[in-house]
């Protein structure tokens, strides 16, 4: 069972802003979904993921970077070649 308080906490962790109506709906839906997920409690076995590929690496070679205008092209706000962002804190 997850409570509205739990869902609020998850929203905070995920930095997803939800309103009161959504909180009620999401809590209801999460309970149904998580109840379904409980089937995983019956899973047994070792976590030995078979990944046949390993040591995938490249040589230390410099390759061209993007031109600065390409880097800034999709950024909504810029200043002197920097990308503008809201201030933390």
């Amino acid at each position, binding site marked *: 069972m*997850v409570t509205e308080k739990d*869902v609020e906490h*998850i*929203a905070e*962790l*995920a*930095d*997803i*802003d*939800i309103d009161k109506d*959504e909180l009620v709906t*999401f809590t209801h*839906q*999460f309970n*149904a*979904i*998580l109840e*379904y*997920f409980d*089937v*995983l*409690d*019956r*899973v*047994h*076995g*070792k*976590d*030995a*993921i*078979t990944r046949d*590929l390993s040591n*995938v690496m*490249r040589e230390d070679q410099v390759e061209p970077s*993007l031109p600065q205008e*390409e*880097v800034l*092209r*999709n*950024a*909504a*706000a810029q200043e002197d070649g920097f*990308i*503008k*962002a*809201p*201030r*933390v*804190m």
Partner: protein
Amino acid sequence: MAENEITFEPDDRYNAFLTVCNRVSHGKGKLAGITVAVKDNISTKNIETTCASKILKGYVPPYDAHVVELIKKEGAAIVGKTNLDEFGMGTTTENSAFGPTLNPCDTTRVPGGSSGGSAAAIASGMVRMALGTDTGGSIRCPSAFCGIVGLKPTYGRVSRYGLIAYANSLEQIGPMARTVSDVSLLMQVIAGYDRRDSTSYNKPYTHTPKADIKGLKIGIPNEYFGEGVDPKVANVVKDALTQLEHLGATTVPCSIPSMEYALAAYYVICTSEASSNLARFDGVRYGPAADTKKSWHDSYQEVRRAGFGTEVRRRIMLGTFALSSGYYGKYYAKAQIARENVRKDFARIFSEVDVIVGPTMPTIAFKLGEKSDPLSMYLADILTVPVNLAGIPAISLPCGKVAGMPVGIQIMGKPFDDERVIDVAFAYEQAVK
């Protein structure tokens, strides 16, 4: 490169396209002049790529995805970007920020998803081929619902470089077309090693489909014909299996016990990866402007609230929960073990059979708006997600109709046995032609 130009002015009454390129130049090669649509979660240089999300509205990638480079090199005419469920999160293409795509076979029904735009563009005849992506069935489901052919290749056979990630460990780009031959042709062009994708294998696909399946052993998993599967759909697929037997194949019953929890494992893994993948959309480097007058935290929440649809936010939250401290062991870690068990089940069956066959979807295409509850929507993926968990190849192709709507047969193969999957599909297609 000799350049030719084509004009593309489709009557897109199904909302298959998010972007249409009216005049397209193309070069020579295996795909010379062939119209190809690209799902809008695959990066195209200088063409807006939105993932059907408001959060990427206006985003113009400065680079081409590896597959886009490859099809351009072979002369394809990329005529547009197709609609999808936002970031690939859905089974109907209703979760697009830019409106749903309609099923060309019946416009009151969904085309399936998430590559619904690509499937509709092919089924309606607007393009000959399209690229889709398949995380939990997103190529095969719309192929089945729209009556076309779609291949989910073996994981690692097609580079994901440039595919905007939803669930990295599960998804593959794959070819979609009206015929198995066209699917095979497009696969020839897009498969192969790419040093920019560390999960890529050096396994090019150079195959030409062969219709001979004499002596083929087919596994029939009882889970694909049991509870939750529309008996009418199951019967159409059983008829198709009889057809395959006439062509010289033998069938043996088998079982995939891990399917009990495969869907749960799938949703835990894909939402976990998605919660991390989608955190970068903060309105700073691309996407709608972050409000720099606000604090970082407030602006971040605001951009995501305005930019993501409900299903995306729901999945981000589910994934965040599955990874959070205290729950990681119960969900994410368990899902990885479940995944390994699914892989083992397939390996065991494949030690005795060449391919496994069943329906692609448990039902025909839903009515628009029919599936409003998220869990019931998730449950519709039950027959497609095991393939993604195991990383194996699978194709869906039309095998008949129920209530006038197409039904898809799903042929699953061993890892890197995409060629065999294509051959079985080709043999069936040629026989019923």
